[in-house]
Structures are given as C-alpha cells and as structure tokens.
C-alpha cells in the first residue's frame, strides 16, 4: 500500500448561508494520479483553494502523511509540498524556460550574480525528469515560442524544482489540441513514475479518464463518486454516471452523439 500523502476529512466550506463544500473526503497517495471531475460550480476551485491554503475550511480535518495539521495555511500547504499549476497564467512568456523555472528562486552565488551554467544544467535535468525534451528547443528558449502543452511542462518542471510532492493541475488540457494533450499526459506519467502525486482537475471526462488512477466526482459540494480505474470500464460509464447525478431521471439520451469533446463542455 502506497503511503498516504494527503487526506481531507469531512471538509466543509460555507460562505454565509451558501455551502460551497459539504463534507468532502479526498485522499491522494504517493505516486498516484487522482482525477477530480465536476461541473462548473461543483466546488472544484474551492477545493483547490483549500488544498493550497488560500482559503480556510469552515470545518474538517487535513492530514499530511497521516498526521493532522492544525492551522492550515498557504505556508503549511507549501511545507507539505503542494504546488498548484494554473493554466497559462503562471509563466512569463517573454523569458527563457530557465528564467521561468527559477523565477523567484534564482541560483545565485557571490553578491547575487546568477550561476548561469548551473541553472541551465539543473533546468535540463528537471526537464528530462518529466520527459520534456525536444530537438527544437533548449532550456534557453523563450517560453512564448512553446506550444500550450510544452508550457504546462515548464510549469510542472518549476513545481518539481520547488520540491513539490503533490502537483495540482487545474484544467491543464482544457484549451489544448490532442497532440498537446498527449504531451501533458506524457509529463504527468513521468511525474508519477518519479514517485510524486498529481491531482488532475478537468471537466473533459475523456482526458481525466485517460490519465487518472482514481476518480473523484464532485457534485454540488459533495463527493458523488470515488472509484479506482479498475472499477470503471470506460469513459462513457463515467459520463453516464455524471449525467445521472446531474439530472436524476435521465437526460442521457440527449448526449448519445459520441462527441466527447462537445458533450462535456
């Protein structure tokens, strides 16, 4: 049994009378990719904010490596090795890959002068570790010249440099083509192979189904389903389940088009 990295127990969050989350249980093991699925307003972003310590839960318990943590905050979250990668916004696109990876944590020597060759060396090591290599660019390439999937790679490499144990990917493939999505999946698998964990959030069920080891479906602030990969036969099962949750009584017939991209938007 893999080590339990982080566990949320009975987490609730209310804004006044409105419940954003009502008693959510969620755990992530070491070296596991957990897919978090849910419609808009299901409470995904609140959950991310709680994990990253930006928002404090109204009630509930957070355990890191089996030990309850009191006074959960952004600093505690960082100490626990949780790093959130937001789509596209987090990179300085006119700078090199190296400058983005070491943003705010430059490798410096005497009087703050950069250790340029050491940074390049370290950046290529990190990029190789997540399988982020290519003939057409080097660590000194400008991020603006990279594709959407490759930019996710830069953000993931940076998270790993920051000693992240759990990387939260917030909708990493939403705006990406199939080729680019495949690149992101490749990075995610490499990260998992290195023993780190990923919480993969998306509303494209096909994407999440392809990459996750375990699924958590969130619906109106509650966990509607937690299932291992082995328990789910196909993405269609998951889609049907979500439609049942969203529209009890069955509107499933309306969505039998097989157009996966469209159905989940």
């Amino acid at each position: 049994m893999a080590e339990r990295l982080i566990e949320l127990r009975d987490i609730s969050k209310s804004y006044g009378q409105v419940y954003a989350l009502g008693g959510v249980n969620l755990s992530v093991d070491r070296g596991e990719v957990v897919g978090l699925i849910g419609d808009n307003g299901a409470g995904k972003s609140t959950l991310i904010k709680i994990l990253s310590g930006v928002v404090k839960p109204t009630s509930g318990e957070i355990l890191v490596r089996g030990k309850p943590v009191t006074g959960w905050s952004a600093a505690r979250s960082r100490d626990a090795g949780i790093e959130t990668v937001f789509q596209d916004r987090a990179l300085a696109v006119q700078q090199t890959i190296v400058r983005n990876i070491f943003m705010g944590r430059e490798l410096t020597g005497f009087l703050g002068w950069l250790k340029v060759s050491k940074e390049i060396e370290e950046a290529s090591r990190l990029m190789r570790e997540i399988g982020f290599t290519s003939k057409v660019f080097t660590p000194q390439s400008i991020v603006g010249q990279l594709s959407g999937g490759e930019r996710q790679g830069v953000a993931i490499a940076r998270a790993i440099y920051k000693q992240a144990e759990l990387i939260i990917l917030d909708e990493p493939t939403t705006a990406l083509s199939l080729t680019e999505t495949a690149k992101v999946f490749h990075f995610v698998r490499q990260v998992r192979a290195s023993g780190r964990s990923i919480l993969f959030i998306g509303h494209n069920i096909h994407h999440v189904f392809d990459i996750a080891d375990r699924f958590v479906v969130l619906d109106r602030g509650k966990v509607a389903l937690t299932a291992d990969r082995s328990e789910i036969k196909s993405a269609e099962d998951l889609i049907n389940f979500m439609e049942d949750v969203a529209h009890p009584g069955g509107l499933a017939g309306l969505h039998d088009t097989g157009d996966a991209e469209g159905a989940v938007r």
Partner: protein
Amino acid sequence: MSKTMEPDLHEPSAAIPRPQKEWKHPSDQWLRGFILDNRASLGTLGVFIVMMAVFMVANPTVFTTWYLYSSVLTTLPVALFVVVPLVFVVTCGEIDLSFPATMGFASWVFALVVQAGYDPFLGIAAALVTGMLLGFLVGSLVVYGGLSSLIATLGMNFLLRGLIQIINEGKSMSLTGLADSWAYKIFSSQVYGIPVQIFWAIAFVVLSAMLYNRHRFGAQVRVVGDNPDSAQQMGIDVKRVRVKVFVFVGIGAAIAGTFSVMINFTWWPTAGDGYLLPVLASVFVGGTPTWGGIGTVVGGAIGAVTVSFIQTGVVAAGLSGFYVQFFNGLIIILSLLGHKWNQARYR
C-alpha cells in the same frame, strides 16, 4: 493490479513526444544564437553604422577629424548614465520622467558641497545619496501610492525643478576650483585626447548589462515586467523590485548630473532639463519595447550614441540646424519599425 495499467487504448500514441537524449546545444550554432539573442542591439548598431556612413559621404573632411568625436564623447557619457537605468525601468513596465529634475537636484547638492569648500569626493557622495533618496521617493510614490508612473514622475519632475528654481531664483553656481581637484582629474580630464568620462560610462554600461542579464536583480526586473502576477505568486516582492529600479535611476541621474557640472565647472538651475527627450528616445531607439519584460542595455547605449551623433552629424554634414529635429524623428521612426519586425518572436 490494474491501477498502474497504462490506458494506452485512448492514447494517440504517435503524438507522444519522443524523449531526446541530448539537447541540441546552442554553441553548435553559436553565430546564429548570438545574432538571435542580440537582435535588438545589433539592429541598433546597424542603424548607427548606416547613419554614420551617410554623414561621412556627405562631408568626409569633418567626419574624419577627431574634434567631432571628442566633443560627442564629452557629453555622451552624461546621457549614458541615465539611459541605462531607464532600460531597467521600462523593462519593469514603468517609466520615469523625473530624472532630469533628479539630475538637477543631485548636482545642486554636489555644487553646494563643493562651494562650501569641501572635497569634491564628498560632494559626489552627497549627490549619490540625494539621487538615491529622490529615486526612493519617486518610486514609493508610484508603487505604494499606486499612481501611474507616467503622470506621477512627470509631476515629480516639475515639482523638484520648481523647488530648485524657487530657492535659487534662476542663479547659477560657478565652481572654478574644481579644475585642480583629484575628482576632476579622475572623472573629467582627458587621456591622450580622449575624454575620460567615456571610460567611466563604458564601465557603467558593461556593469549594468551584466546586472541586467546575469544578476538576480535583472532577472527579477524582467520577470516583474513580463508577468507581475506570476512573479508575485513565485514569491518575488514585486513592489520592492519596482521601487529598486526607480532608485537605480536616481543613482544614474546623480552621476550624470555631477558629470555635467564637472564638464562645465558651472551648475545651472536648469541642469539636466535638455536630456529628457533625447534620453527617452535613446532607450526606444536602442530596442527596448514599451510593453515591459524585455530590453537591452547595450542596445540602449548604442541608441544614445546614435541620438547624440544625429545633432552633431546633421550640422557637420552641412545642413542647417533646422534639419536636426527632422532627422531625430526620422531615426526614431525607422528604428521603431525595425525593432517591431525584430520583436515579432515575442508576441
């Protein structure tokens, strides 16, 4: 355990990027890399060379005499000391129009200390402290006051200049004693006919270029100018970095003001006023774009050389002074068009 099984069926496997063993090292094609990395400054250099060639053809006799270059090299350093810090400010996504008044104010302090009979070195130190304080004041006003740097620094320029004028009532200060001082010999004399200021200015440009490209300060300035939200998220104190660039301008303006007083042995209440537009033009002619995040210190320096040769060159080439503004404008517009094409890869 099916948990670890790869869901390959859903994978467009042909699209998986194949991991490469080795990076294609940039040094394999170092010349191409060098040109790509230094496009902006090389472009500026090209503009300068073409311009000088035109001048030389127009009037070969004047442009082969040393006197012309000597006079440009005397005044150019003053501009360089402010152009370079302004590259940092513009890269950081801000602008500083208050440097002419800071030049006047800091050099006024220098003149006061020298006139009071103290060593000019002490005057230089006092001017530097004044420049730093004024830079900090302007920077704090913009950053912590949340004001537009364009308007706030313009206001500070008027305010400080007004203060100088009110107190001095337009009177200048003559500092004839300077000529015998060590400070003058070190900073403002001539070596084999070359004005010594230019060596200090070149050292300043080289040090600043390293600060820009190879120091944490430069790296953070670029990142803050590029994406302040991201920089903040990654733990960079964005406001602190922004204030620092204004302090840097203050320091540069203090050096520039002091040098201009040492060249003329006189301090005027208008000291620095004439530098506003040429210096700004130099930054942008040099290839630093207006939107922040990127820039070039060396390009800015070459831009300053270009701008200071326009005036001398137009007159020396036999055209009347009325042509100077026209050529100033022409060079600025042509450079901007060239850089726009250059910078396409960033946007």
